[in-house]
């Protein structure tokens, strides 16, 4: 049964030092407000799982929260590179991080396997690809029926998954619309799930029955954070702040500029600032 909490309480109760955690959202619905709260609370030694680490993990890595990152595309989508993540990999700043790199197909399959309660995902992948030479978690299995060799990777089983969504009902049901990404799989594969939402409504009685709804008993905690995906977007509420993604390339290029930006925009503010950030988008 989902609890309705403040973001401060939800993070404090659900995420511990050393946890394996996924903040998912495929370009869309990236839970930035939740990540900022984690940064404010100073969690340490996290194993971060995310298909595209995006700005959200660039910030967490740059602030030294991560011990390990499991990912499949370390870029700032449409802009270029993730400069804080690169600084950690190339120069161990502010600390060294372990990386476990996959393809998108492997990551998506690993979430699905986690949601399905399987120990591993099996798929036709990595053929001829260099990643299987450098990532020992990529193995192969032989189909017992056809003899075909297939790729196998361990299922994702995060301690906690954070996602952002459009709506929750008062009962705690969660609606995700638009590019649904791996949101459902990431929630169902995790031990605990925290969902930030744009809106809390009375009920979902008038919705189409096939919309992606997570039943209230699959969610641990729900937090009302309008604008909580910014600079990512929430379909039906506000657009992606592409200019902000472009600007991040400059902010993240310089350690001091980054530190100052984090102080001004994350450490010294609270989740209530997100609503104003999406006005006009």
């Amino acid at each position, binding site marked *: 049964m989902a609890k309705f909490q403040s973001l401060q309480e939800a993070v404090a109760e659900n995420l511990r030092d050393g946890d394996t955690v996924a903040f998912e959202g*495929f*370009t*869309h619905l990236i839970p930035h407000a939740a990540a900022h709260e984690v940064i404010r609370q100073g969690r340490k030694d996290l194993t971060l799982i995310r*298909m*595209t680490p995006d700005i959200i993990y660039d910030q967490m890595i740059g602030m030294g929260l991560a011990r390990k990152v499991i*990912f*499949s*595309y*370390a*870029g700032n*989508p*449409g*802009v270029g*590179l*993730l400069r804080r*993540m*690169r600084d950690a990999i190339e120069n161990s700043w502010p600390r060294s991080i372990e990386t476990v*790199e996959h*393809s*998108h*197909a492997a990551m*998506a*399959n690993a*979430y*699905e396997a986690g949601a399905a309660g399987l120990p591993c995902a099996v*798929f*036709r*992948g*990595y*053929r*001829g*690809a*260099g*990643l299987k030479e*450098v990532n020992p978690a990529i193995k192969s299995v032989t189909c017992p029926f056809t003899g*075909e060799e297939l790729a196998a990777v361990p299922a994702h089983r995060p301690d906690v998954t954070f996602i952002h969504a459009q709506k929750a009902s008062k009962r705690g049901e969660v609606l995700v619309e*638009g*590019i*649904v*990404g*791996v949101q*459902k*799989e990431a929630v169902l594969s995790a031990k605990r799930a925290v969902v930030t939402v744009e809106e809390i409504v009375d009920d979902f009685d008038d919705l189409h029955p096939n919309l992606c709804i997570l039943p209230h008993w699959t969610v641990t905690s729900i937090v009302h954070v309008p604008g909580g995906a*910014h600079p990512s*977007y929430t*379909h039906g509420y*506000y657009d*992606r*702040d*592409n*200019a*902000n*993604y*472009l600007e991040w390339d400059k902010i993240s290029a310089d350690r001091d500029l980054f530190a100052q930006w984090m102080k001004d925009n994350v450490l010294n503010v609270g989740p209530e600032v997100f609503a*104003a*950030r*999406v*006005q*006009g*988008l």
Partner: protein
Amino acid sequence: MSGFTPTEMMTIAAARALSNDDVCFVGIGAPSAACNVARLTHAPDITLIYESGTIGTAPEVLPLSIGDGELCETAVSTVPVPEMFRYWLQGGRISIGFLGAAQLDRFGNINTTVIGDYNHPKVRLPGGGGAPEIATSCKEVYITMKQSTRGMVEKIDFYTSFGHGDGGDHRQRLGIDTKGPTLLITDLATWKPDPDTKEFTVVSMHPGVTREQVQETCGWKVRFADNVEETPPPSELELSTLRDLQARTERAHGGKKGV
């Protein structure tokens, strides 16, 4: 037709390679521009798929990311990402995968992962994303990139996405039954793999381009086909479609900013 840039010629030549019947998995950047020019000119019914799960999308402006909202709003259907990779890509439903490359070798193997050693990289690039499986699960693969000796190299530093490996029947030997890279479009030329060796060979040069220019900007010894054609220059319609698309894109991505 008056002036056009080499990049415009590249995008338009790439767009021409696509047909109305294609189901195309679109990489971001240059492939995305080419695929949408095709859709807005000679291939209005082409199915464009981005890895965010958007199937049959028709954006008014080029997306900055593969998951921009407009891709979903204009799509025939938007499916979850695990389904995208399992049913649609792995299921063999995509005719063409359209990829860009940071580093490319003569056999169409692509590196977008690292420059230097994987564990101690000189430059850490973003990595593969969907590309490793796009390269092997789509029926065939088109590649587009600008020529440079840094990009087109004798030996790539990392096999992000497998092309023809060491050439010949290397794909078949690995049990890969799709065709792999069948076309390379650069800002100077159009290349196709030799039927036997699978080495990319120049089959057409863009207007005004010389063999020396093609060689100077390529890190391997270039092979030219027996009859190298000249790529027809961009038509008025192709060029205005591309430029309008880019102007709309510029306005859409530069204009909005939150606080």
